[in-house]
């Protein structure tokens, strides 16, 4: 089921996610997936995942995957709407909170906030990795290749200092050769 693309709804969706993106926008990927793929049908599962892969492969802050998602929904206006939505609330909050936080690092509310949110942030990051792999794991032909490639990637990240971009490029080459 696909609902017609609505730029303002797109903007509002990212606007509401902005303040929830503690630990980076990557933690709200499952929610973006629920909205853009499951609810509105503006993106397919595969194009959702490849949008994120593309942004990760490119230079720059990873937040730009939001621009690519918006672009794939509605071209340049979609990219502008999604980026404005995700950046506005968090930027305003960052600027207003910065000076207060700088002087109150030991304040109990700031410490409780951080201590309460850190476990959640980590659980969310791992859930995000899991959800990103789902479309490949669902396709039988690619299941084991994908699992193996993910496992190798995890080991390389944990055990070596190899640049992440080389891993992404190697994944692309292996994919193009039909090995995964």
């Amino acid at each position, binding site marked *: 089921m696909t609902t017609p693309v609505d730029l303002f709804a797109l903007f509002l969706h990212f606007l509401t996610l902005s303040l929830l*993106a503690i630990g*980076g926008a990557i933690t709200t990927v*499952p*929610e973006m997936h629920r909205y853009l793929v499951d609810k509105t049908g503006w993106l397919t599962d595969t194009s959702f*995942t*490849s*949008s994120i*892969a*593309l942004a990760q*492969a*490119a*230079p*720059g*802050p990873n937040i730009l995957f939001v621009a*690519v998602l918006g672009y794939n929904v509605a071209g340049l206006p979609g990219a502008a709407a999604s980026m404005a939505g995700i*950046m506005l609330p*968090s*930027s305003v*909050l*960052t*600027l207003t*909170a*910065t000076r207060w936080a*700088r002087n109150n690092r030991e304040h*109990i509310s*700031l*410490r*409780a*906030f*951080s*201590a*309460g*949110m850190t*476990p*959640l942030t*980590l*659980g*969310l*990051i*791992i*859930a995000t990795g*899991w959800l*990103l792999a789902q479309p*490949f794991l669902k396709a039988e032909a690619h299941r084991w290749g994908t699992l193996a*490639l*993910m496992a190798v*990637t*995890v080991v390389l*990240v*944990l055990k070596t200092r190899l640049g*992440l971009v080389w*891993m*992404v*490029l190697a*994944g*692309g*080459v292996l*994919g*193009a050769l039909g090995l*995964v």
Partner: protein
Amino acid sequence: MPNRPQSLAQLFIAFTRLALQGFGGVLAVAQRELVERLGWLSKEEFVETLAIAQVLPGPNVVNLSMMVGDRFFGLRGAVVALAGMLLAPAVVVLGLAAIYGELARYPAAVSALRGMGAVAAGLVLATGIKLLPALKTSPLGRPLALGLALLAFVAIGLLRWPLFHVLALLGGGGMALAWWRLRK
């Protein structure tokens, strides 16, 4: 005494240069450029600013760039640093997205993206695993913190609950518990 940017233009160029070097995340490059090459922040200031950026919503390194800009030039500096971080990389990544639309007709390109997607998923998983030891120092205590992380994974990854519900329930609960423990 750290150096400082002499002009808004210099600030913009520094952040553009930094962002364009950041394949697979900008944090490491930010430290190298801002602390080691430019000397705008001491190592301690960098870590402290990042700690604040991390408890605020929004992309950490982008938040950090705004805080640095704000510190030297006020609001104008924050806006210029943000633009430096996002503009040029946005052009690059959207250019790639546009080309990908053309390339998607070729099976090899689609397969390449699938391979890249699997690696991207692995990178995110590995990042989460790599950060788990940070829970050792949690005021909640390690077992409770790990339990919360596991519950968050199950609720989002397996049960597919909406994020807001999970944040309200688990995040609110975690913060209340942490508050209570810290008060003692």
